[in-house]
């Protein structure tokens, strides 16, 4: 199994590197220093999993999205962490990463856990704890379906924290129309809650154009 570990400045990543590089079933060449370097490693090697520290969840999400767009498949993207908090696992899965590797485990246990994450990822499964909570994998990383300028304006105002009444006033609309559109947007995007829409829309930024060349 070939791993890519990012990022160089993270204590957690150095720990992951030290723990995993000695295992006979793993190949870990080093620690990538940046997101661009991770992308470069993925392009030049057949990588099974990319390990990133908890504060790289957003970076991992962006890299995975763009690797998927360019190649239609991507390695498993895994948060490496010193604990196995369900909140962190939930966030990782919701933004489209594949799981969390608990670095407090022994090397053999960690490798077993990593194997499970990679296999679950290839079979599009998630761990049972997260599944029980009803977390939808990648819900917060989807390209949102917003049919019109009105819908996008609506989402902009929801993200700004405005109540429906203020949104109706701001968009020169009625509260009935605003709420009907919110219901339609939630349904089209398979979301249950208004807050999911707010979070997903606020996370829907893309890799900037100056960095896109690196991802393609």
């Amino acid at each position, binding site marked *: 199994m070939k791993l890519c570990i990012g990022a160089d400045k993270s204590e957690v990543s150095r720990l992951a590197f030290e723990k995993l590089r000695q295992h006979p079933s793993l190949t870990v060449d080093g620690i990538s220093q940046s997101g661009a370097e991770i992308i470069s490693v993925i392009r030049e090697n057949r990588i099974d999993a990319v390990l990133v520290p908890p504060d790289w969840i957003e970076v991992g999400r962006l890299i995975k999205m763009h690797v998927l767009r360019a190649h239609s498949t991507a390695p498993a993207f895994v948060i490496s962490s010193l604990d196995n908090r369900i909140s962190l696992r939930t966030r990782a899965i919701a933004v489209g990463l594949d799981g969390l590797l608990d670095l407090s485990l022994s090397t053999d246990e960690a490798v077993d856990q990593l194997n499970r994450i990679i296999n679950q990822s290839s079979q599009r499964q998630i761990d049972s704890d997260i599944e029980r909570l009803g977390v939808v994998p990648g819900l917060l990383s989807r390209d949102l379906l917003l049919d019109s300028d009105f819908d996008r304006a609506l989402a902009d105002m929801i993200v700004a924290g405005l109540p429906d009444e203020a949104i109706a006033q701001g968009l020169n609309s*009625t*509260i*009935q*129309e605003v*709420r*009907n559109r*919110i219901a339609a947007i939630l349904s089209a995007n398979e979301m249950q*809650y*208004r*807050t999911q829409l707010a979070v997903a829309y606020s996370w829907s930024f893309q890799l900037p154009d100056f960095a896109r060349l690196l991802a393609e």
Partner: protein
Amino acid sequence: MNEWRFRLLSETARTDDYVDDPEFTEVTGSGEIYTLFRIVRITHEAEHSDSEWTHLANVVRVSDSALGVAELRVVDRVILDARVTVSGHG
């Protein structure tokens, strides 16, 4: 629901006599859950204009065709608020 505060409307009353758009959304779950309904028929009208709910209607849930009764607050042909009791599936 205080039935006595409402008067029964004629069965020939048309929805578009009362509202511009027969589709409306009930917001529940502390403002988080938005459920789209469609009015089948407006059945009652409040006797007093200062009532919390101005109309009662038979409604259908758009996602799964469940039937229900809605209390509606309609002002200037716009549904400002709604509370639905789902009674069964169509």
